């Protein structure tokens, strides 16, 4: 089935580029989305199986693949609306959709690959696809964003490669040359610790560019700002998840070696610094899209802290990353409507959103409550569990700092969102405000509702998948 998936991806992607007729383009897009949604079902029914020798369907891969497939449906739909309302040329539409297909498929294959070199290759492909999406508008700002993204991602990809080379050296002591995750896990006790440390340092730093964490977060923030919002939704969720899985699979191995504590100090520092940096930027940010991007950085920091705290924190971290994907993508989809009303990203020039787009405003308000983990948001559950786990592992100082930072973020986020909803806009001519169909907000409501449902009443299969994902981690 993986082979069928890859063939469909290639056919649909190449056809869209070659044949630019509207019907063919959308037919191919629909074909791809159908296959993308069928893929998780096949993967679920073949749980634990290995296909084409490099793709193993394990629990964490299945979870993130399902998440991505669910988000890809509204991403394609909002992409269609975006292209239609902007009167794009055939060429730019073809590039947009083929890049979108490339991005989604590279993330899908990356999360289920069982070999570090393959995860790396698919991460590299996402850089290419993402840069085509970021450069969509072909203007100065887009060029600047793309240049920064490509450059930083090229360096980060090189870092991951250096990390893989060091991992190779670490593995040499055991006499094995197989860099698949299973083989690494099997030989974990024979790995040379010096090389392993160096390797993890480079791999983690490399993946932070995709994960939006300190130190290499800058490029991903610019990318989400300049890419069209429906594509930005994928960059802010799917791509982050790919970076996370690249890190997480190595972390599982590190956690089973004597270096567990050292690793925790490293990622814990990166996590808390990310939340801190996100807070500082959130207090000043006026660009709505960048605000959403910084919020993603904050949540990834929370995930890292959850993993460090151990115990129930592992479960909470995986739950958090899935719920974050649904809510954040919903907010990005909502942003496309905000921009169509105000033609501006700056919060100063927006306001009275309730007057211009009632359904959209309610969706935004719901999204705000969800993303800031205010009940009934599902994220409340995951954040609560992370705090509980911090308390259980006696990391009180981290807990207090995190508490203060999160409160500040809620304040900063709320200030901007409520300004957008209820305060009068500055110098805004409302004679030409387009009427936005309430149906366009349906997908957002569904995504938010999904996040609430999965947080408060998760189906047993979902819980067991998360538990299996963190099974190999020590308590």
């Amino acid at each position, binding site marked *: 089935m993986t082979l069928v998936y890859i063939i469909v991806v290639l056919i649909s992607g190449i056809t869209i580029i070659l044949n630019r007729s509207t019907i063919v383009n959308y037919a191919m897009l629909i074909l791809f989305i159908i296959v993308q949604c069928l893929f998780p079902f096949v993967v679920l029914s073949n749980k634990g199986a290995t296909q084409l020798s490099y793709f193993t369907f394990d629990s964490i891969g299945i979870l993130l693949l399902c998440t991505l497939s669910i988000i890809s449906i509204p991403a394609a739909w909002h992409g269609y609306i975006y292209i239609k309302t902007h009167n794009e040329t055939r060429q730019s539409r073809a590039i947009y959709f083929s890049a979108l297909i490339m991005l989604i498929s590279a993330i899908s294959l990356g999360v289920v690959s069982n070999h570090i070199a393959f995860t790396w290759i698919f991460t590299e492909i996402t850089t290419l696809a993402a840069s085509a999406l970021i450069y969509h508008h072909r203007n100065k700002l887009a060029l600047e964003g793309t240049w920064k993204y490509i450059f930083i991602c090229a360096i980060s990809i*090189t870092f991951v490669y*250096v990390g893989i080379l060091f991992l190779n050296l670490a593995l040499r*002591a055991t006499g094995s040359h197989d860099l698949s995750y299973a083989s690494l896990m099997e030989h974990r006790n024979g790995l040379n610790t010096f090389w392993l440390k160096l390797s993890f340092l480079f791999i983690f730093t490399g993946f932070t560019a995709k994960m939006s964490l300190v130190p290499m977060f800058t490029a991903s923030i610019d990318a989400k700002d300049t890419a069209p919002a429906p594509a930005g939704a994928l960059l802010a969720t799917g791509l982050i998840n790919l970076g996370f899985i690249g890190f997480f699979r190595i972390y599982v191995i590190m956690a089973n070696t004597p270096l567990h504590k050292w690793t925790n100090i490293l990622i814990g520092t990166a996590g808390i610094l990310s939340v801190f940096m996100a807070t500082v930027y959130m207090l000043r940010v006026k660009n709505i899209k960048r605000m959403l991007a910084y919020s993603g950085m904050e949540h990834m920091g929370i995930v890292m802290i959850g993993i460090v705290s151990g115990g129930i924190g592992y479960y909470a971290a995986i739950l958090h990353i899935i719920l974050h994907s649904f809510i954040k993508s919903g907010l990005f989809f909502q942003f496309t409507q905000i921009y169509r009303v105000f033609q501006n990203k700056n919060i100063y020039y927006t306001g009275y959103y309730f007057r211009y787009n009632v359904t959209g405003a309610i969706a935004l308000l719901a999204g705000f409550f969800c993303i800031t983990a205010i009940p009934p948001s599902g994220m409340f559950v995951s954040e609560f569990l992370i705090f509980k786990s911090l308390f259980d592992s006696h990391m009180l100082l981290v807990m207090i700092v995190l508490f203060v930072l999160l409160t500040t973020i809620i304040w900063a986020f709320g200030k901007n969102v409520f300004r957008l909803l209820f305060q009068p806009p500055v110098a805004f001519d409302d004679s030409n405000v387009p009427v936005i169909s309430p149906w366009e907000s349906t997908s957002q409501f569904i995504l938010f509702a999904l996040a609430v449902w999965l947080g408060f009443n998760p189906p047993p299969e979902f819980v067991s998948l998360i538990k299996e994902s963190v099974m190999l981690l020590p308590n």
Partner: protein
Amino acid sequence: MIHVFLIIFLITLFYLSIANRMLTYIKVLALQGMILFAVSFMQLSEINTLNLVLILLETIVFKSLAVPLFLAYVLKRNRITREAEPFVPNFVSLIIVTLIVVSTVLLSYSIHDVHLDRMFFVVAFSSLMTGLYIIASRRKIITHVMGYMIIENGVFILSLAVGNEMPAMVNLGIMLDIFASVLILGIFLNKIGDVFKNVDIDQLSNLKDY
């Protein structure tokens, strides 16, 4: 003999840190490509012909000919000034690169691995760090690209250290190299030159939070 070449490579890093003219950078990059070929030819003794051809293409054709020629073309076409315009004086750069090399040597003494030649590690790691330093301390976008090329060369040396047992890793590295370089150089340097007339990073600061 390999060590001699590796030491020459290390010397080129020092030279780069004090180089003033853009053309010097390009020439040094071409020289590094040739040194890399010599090192890989001697290091990878058990290699098959196909891989050797691939490495030859990567080092001589790509690193010493295509990239330098292209960079020279970009310099000329965009009328970029000849000076490297570093943020810090050359003397300070030299001191910093020396510190990088010294600390890498010290780090290498904490390795307890009989399989690895320390020399490879020192040269590769120093060149990685020097590349990062050059990116951070120079003003022009094109010097950033050159810094990236230096990082790539360092990574290539590192991949040679494990290459005899795992030729796949070397191939993977070559793939990375060509992929990223073509993407960066081919598509963007040209575009940036067209849109931003003076190719300077000071111009790339319009993406703001407010």
